[in-house]
């Protein structure tokens, strides 16, 4: 571990008050993830984070800051050469039990994944198998995790899932290339919802979508949240988007969380200079702004 003590992310009193009223559902403590290349790269450094039941936590940062790596780490989905160097991840189930996610393996890990915590991946549009129908892919989730269901029950559940995300069940027999970008994203969300998880991690779910479609997808996510009350970790570089829809926002840079606060606080009074830089990169649509040439050396 590094010798210097990390001060922890900048935050506010309002944040502490806000958080005091909530119940944690996923706690990460001092998580470090390293890429075992030469020389090794610390992608995530001593990150501690608490996700509360039913909230939307935004994880903001630019490419390379470690936000996706952290998400994969929380879900135990790290791919070589990434390795979880240290840290504790605890899942606080609704039935009262606590699960040590780091210690899971084999069947226990498979049971945990998707059932308690599911994920919508970055580039989800290309994550659907091009040679399998939507039905086949949805059913795959069910046969793995709910082997007790009969075939009719599975079919019904698949139709129900598609309806839940606003896609006509007629589309069950479609293939990925026959669906629009927005529809594919909805199917991915349906897959993530299949087992009614308590936490959904979404990695840049709307980045490649048009802004109008994006709003529809966000609306859908909100609707589902109202119905099923799951918590969301929403990873994106689009800070204005998070400011609009997230409850709390964690700003990441170079593997660390530099600021963690409620969305309102962050918008009104961001403390860290990096947060301020990020905010200033998004000119307000309705406010005043001008592009002038007071810029420094090329980045």
């Amino acid at each position, binding site marked *: 571990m590094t010798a210097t003590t990390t001060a922890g992310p900048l935050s506010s009193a309002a944040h502490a008050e806000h958080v005091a009223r909530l119940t944690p559902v996923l706690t990460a403590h001092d998580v470090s993830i390293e890429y075992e290349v030469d020389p090794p790269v610390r992608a995530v450094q001593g990150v501690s984070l608490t996700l509360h039941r039913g909230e939307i936590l935004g994880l903001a940062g630019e490419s390379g800051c470690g936000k996706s790596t952290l998400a994969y780490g929380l879900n135990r989905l790290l791919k070589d050469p990434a390795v979880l160097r240290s840290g504790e991840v605890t899942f606080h189930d609704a039935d009262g039990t606590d699960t040590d996610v780091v210690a899971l393996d084999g069947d226990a890990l498979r049971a945990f994944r998707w059932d308690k915590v599911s994920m919508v991946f970055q580039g989800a549009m290309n994550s659907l198998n091009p040679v399998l129908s939507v039905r086949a892919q949805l059913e795959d989730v069910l046969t793995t995790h709910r082997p007790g269901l009969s075939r009719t029950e599975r079919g019904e559940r698949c139709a129900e899932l598609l309806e839940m995300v606003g896609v006509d069940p007629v589309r069950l027999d479609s293939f990925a290339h026959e669906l629009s970008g927005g529809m594919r994203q909805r199917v991915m969300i349906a897959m993530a919802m299949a087992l009614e998880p308590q936490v959904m991690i979404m990695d840049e779910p709307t980045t490649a979508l048009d802004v*109008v479609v994006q709003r529809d997808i966000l609306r859908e996510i909100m609707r589902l949240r109202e119905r099923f009350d799951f918590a969301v970790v929403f990873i994106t570089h*689009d800070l204005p988007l998070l400011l*609009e829809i997230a409850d709390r926002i964690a700003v990441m840079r170079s593997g660390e969380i530099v600021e963690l606060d409620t969305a309102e606080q962050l918008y009104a009074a961001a403390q860290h200079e990096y947060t301020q830089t990020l905010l200033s990169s998004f000119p307000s649509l309705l406010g005043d702004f001008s592009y002038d040439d007071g810029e420094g050396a090329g980045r």
Partner: protein
Amino acid sequence: MSTLEVRNLVKEFKVRDGLRRSTLRAVNDVSFTLSAGRTVAVVGESGSGKSTVARMIAQLETPTSGEILLDDAAIGRRGRALADYRHQVQMVFQDPFASLNPYHSVEHHLARPLKLHGVARGKDVLPAVYGLLERVNLTPAPVFAEKRPHEMSGGQRQRIAIARALAPGARFLVADEPVSMLDVSIRLGVLNLLARLQREENLGVLYITHDLATARHFSDEIVVMYRGDVVEQGPSDEVILDPQHDYTKTLLAAAPEPSRHGRLRDEVRAELAAG
């Protein structure tokens, strides 16, 4: 005053779907004028035809019908006339990773247009290359001149792309989503650079984007496109603050706006409570 005018531009593509052939009208009757020192933004979603318009102006595609006029004269499409046009109208591409040839150094990328358009010859070329690098704030210039694309960040590559576009001494610049593939904190710097260069060179800039906010603050006029048609067109502030067309209003409502915090959730709650 120099102008680049686009009149009733139409572009159709032939599409083959199995045995059927059909025509896709990507651009349908688009008209606007670029003038020196002013920016026109063409805003739209994917499939709106905005990139096709840009490519037609850069003469990477030929219009199916309509005219492009440079200083009120029809543009040349081959030989000497085309070379002249290329001298005056240049383009910056969207993808900084794809618009530079991975095999060639920065110096090659910048020296070629300088030589092609007779801006510099022989031993004047290298100083001219360094000059270009300094104008886009990539210093020390000799260090950057030797680099290859994969040794630079996205923002730096885009600056090279801008330098390359400036090399021939162009009067008009077509910028096709120049910052959408760059990291967020770098976008501001690159757009500031473009604004400065426009001012210094009195360039006419065509700014293609899907981002309404940057369109509004970067350009003087906005053209809103939807599925090939121009649905609204006018001074930036007017289009954004007082939109007339429904599609423009939808676009504006859909853009993330931090000051509307919590509104989506309230709407969804109300909707679920009601129905």
